[in-house]
């Protein structure tokens, strides 16, 4: 015989029920057929021989009913009714099946069914929205890539590469008139070639051809057209041939050694000037270029070199131009 009260007496309060979950404020029932999840006298599926639930499988809702007549046959105890997908029709079905059943169970079944349909709708909506995909990272692969990246960074020598590229662009003339450097390498090579005829015009014209214009096809940027050298050259042409007479005192022995170094382009004075200049366009003082074989008795050169020690902001079309002693 089914003695519900006795069962409840045992599992509900006094002794152990394996489905019961105790928390501070409430007891819950983990039984899969429980209609509310709470451990109550009226919602315990074990302690009620007439019981009904709604359960959902793969989007389909079913009404489960338990009757006292089948209490002896555990295999057939729960009767399963498939509910229609239409919400109102399903509610009618519940009513129809649970006619004459206690009000509590009917009400709770309908409540549960409503909740289930709501969460099914939300699931279907979420699938249509953006889904976050979690991609697992393999630790080995990540560490391998990290190491490769470090090695690649070392092999890249970025600073050198960038500097090289910038200098190449300067040589090609992409910067146009902004920087007023004469191109020493041109001069040297050309002067060595035409050792005899050293008129300035010729040399400057040859520079126009941009002997070193052949560049590597590394960069893909389309920059502004190359500005030819000729436009820069003319201001200096006027100054060529001017002579200055300088006192002998100023030519010192130590300066003679400097002439070998003239071909090296850096002087410390230049760099000082550079560092203290502003960020605006600044016209660089043009140094006279000499080849090694020239006579060092050109005092004017020495004087010019001396003057560079001071910090000066120079304008364009400098009087200090390239001097060539022909």
């Amino acid at each position, binding site marked *: 015989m089914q003695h519900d009260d006795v069962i409840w007496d045992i599992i509900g309060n006094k002794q152990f029920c394996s489905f019961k979950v105790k928390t501070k404020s409430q007891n819950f029932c983990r039984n899969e057929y429980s209609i509310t999840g709470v451990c109550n006298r009226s919602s315990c599926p074990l302690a009620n021989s007439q019981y009904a639930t709604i359960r959902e499988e793969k989007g389909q809702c079913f009404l489960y009913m338990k009757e006292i007549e089948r209490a002896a046959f555990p295999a057939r105890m729960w009767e399963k009714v498939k509910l229609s997908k239409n919400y109102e029709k399903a509610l009618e079905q519940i009513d129809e099946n649970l006619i004459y059943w206690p009000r509590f169970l009917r009400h709770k079944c309908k409540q549960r069914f409503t909740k289930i349909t709501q969460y099914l709708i939300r699931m279907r909506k979420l699938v249509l*929205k*953006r889904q976050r995909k979690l991609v697992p990272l393999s630790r080995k*692969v990540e560490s391998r*890539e*990290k190491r*490769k*990246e470090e*090695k*690649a*960074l070392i*092999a*890249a020598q*970025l*600073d050198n*590469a*960038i*500097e090289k*590229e*910038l*200098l190449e*662009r*300067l*040589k090609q003339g992409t*910067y*146009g008139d*902004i*920087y007023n*450097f*004469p*191109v*020493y390498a041109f001069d040297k090579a050309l002067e060595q070639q035409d050792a005899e005829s050293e008129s300035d015009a010729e040399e400057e014209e040859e520079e126009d051809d941009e002997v070193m214009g052949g560049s590597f*096809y*590394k*960069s*893909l*940027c*389309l*920059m*502004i057209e190359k500005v030819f050298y000729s436009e820069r050259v003319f201001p200096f042409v006027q100054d060529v041939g001017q002579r200055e007479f300088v006192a002998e005192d100023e030519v010192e022995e130590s300066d003679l050694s400097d002439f070998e170094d003239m071909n090296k*382009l*850096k002087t410390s004075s*230049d*760099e000082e000037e*550079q560092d203290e200049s502003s*960020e605006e*366009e600044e016209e*660089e003082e043009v140094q006279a270029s000499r080849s090694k074989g020239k006579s060092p008795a050109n005092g004017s050169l020495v004087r010019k070199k001396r003057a560079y020690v001071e910090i000066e902001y120079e304008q364009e079309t400098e009087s200090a131009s390239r001097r060539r002693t022909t």
Partner: protein
Amino acid sequence: FFNKKKNKKAPMKDLKMEEESSGVEKLEPGTTFPPTFSVSEIKNKQRRHQMFMKLKQEKRKQKMQLKKKRRKEREALGDKAPPKEVPKTIENQRVFDETTVDPEDEEIAFDEGTDEFSAYFNGLTNPKVLITTSDRPRGRVVKFCEQLATVIPNAHVYYRRGLALKRIIPQCIARDFTYLIVINQDRQTPNGLVLCHLPDGPTAHFKVSSVRLQKELKRRGKAPTEHSPEVILNNFSTRLGHTIGRLFAALFPQNPQFVGRQVATFHNQRDFIFFRFHRYIFKNEKKVGIQELGPRFTLKLRSLQKGTFDSKYGEFEWVLKRHEMDACRRKFQL
């Protein structure tokens, strides 16, 4: 001792046997044959260790002798010595890629004249970039976005708010944006970048690593100004590399302002793309000084897809397949 004796006996035996068996080959007296045993066969650990050390010493000695000999020869020859051999590097040994672009290739020139970037390179469009993140950006990602926006001229940062990319894209196109950058994050640091060229352009997905924000750089210059920077693209040699290079180039306006003296560099080395942002100054025409501003990060291409962002139905031009592509250490894609 036994082993050492065995070592010496074995070659003698071999010599005799050889001479008997092959009458055709004439052997020079005194050739030593390699012993038929190896050091690893000795069971005793100490003895094995000793033998191994001996072997190593022998090898080292031979190597030194060889080196000395070569050096002497080189000095003896003086000027006529053959040039020094170039050491092998990964870049030297790179497997030749058949898609390497020849600068004079007409087909490629034609392709590039008519692809999705032609509008930019012909000067018709100006780049306008939208930078955004994935949902709920935190920490460094936000700062990274802001700094990127200062580096790229005409860039706007917008908060994502959980919108779907497929809905964002038509709106961007309507407002004349040319680029969409989405930065993905993992634990508050950026780790992915989706670069989408807008009208109908290719979408590239990169893995981002080693992000250094402006604060974290040493010897940093002041903040980048509003001038358009120049762009340097290094080592994009294959066809795929070309496409990616153009992708980067189109981010920046066509006419850089040399007044600003800023340069953005995308340097490809072994399939890693290093991004740097510098300010340069020419000290004289053989020396230039650069000072790093701006964030730095490295990118690795993960996939390139034709058309705008569509991960399910998009047509992928190139996808990183680790097993195929990482198997050979000398083969690179970009």
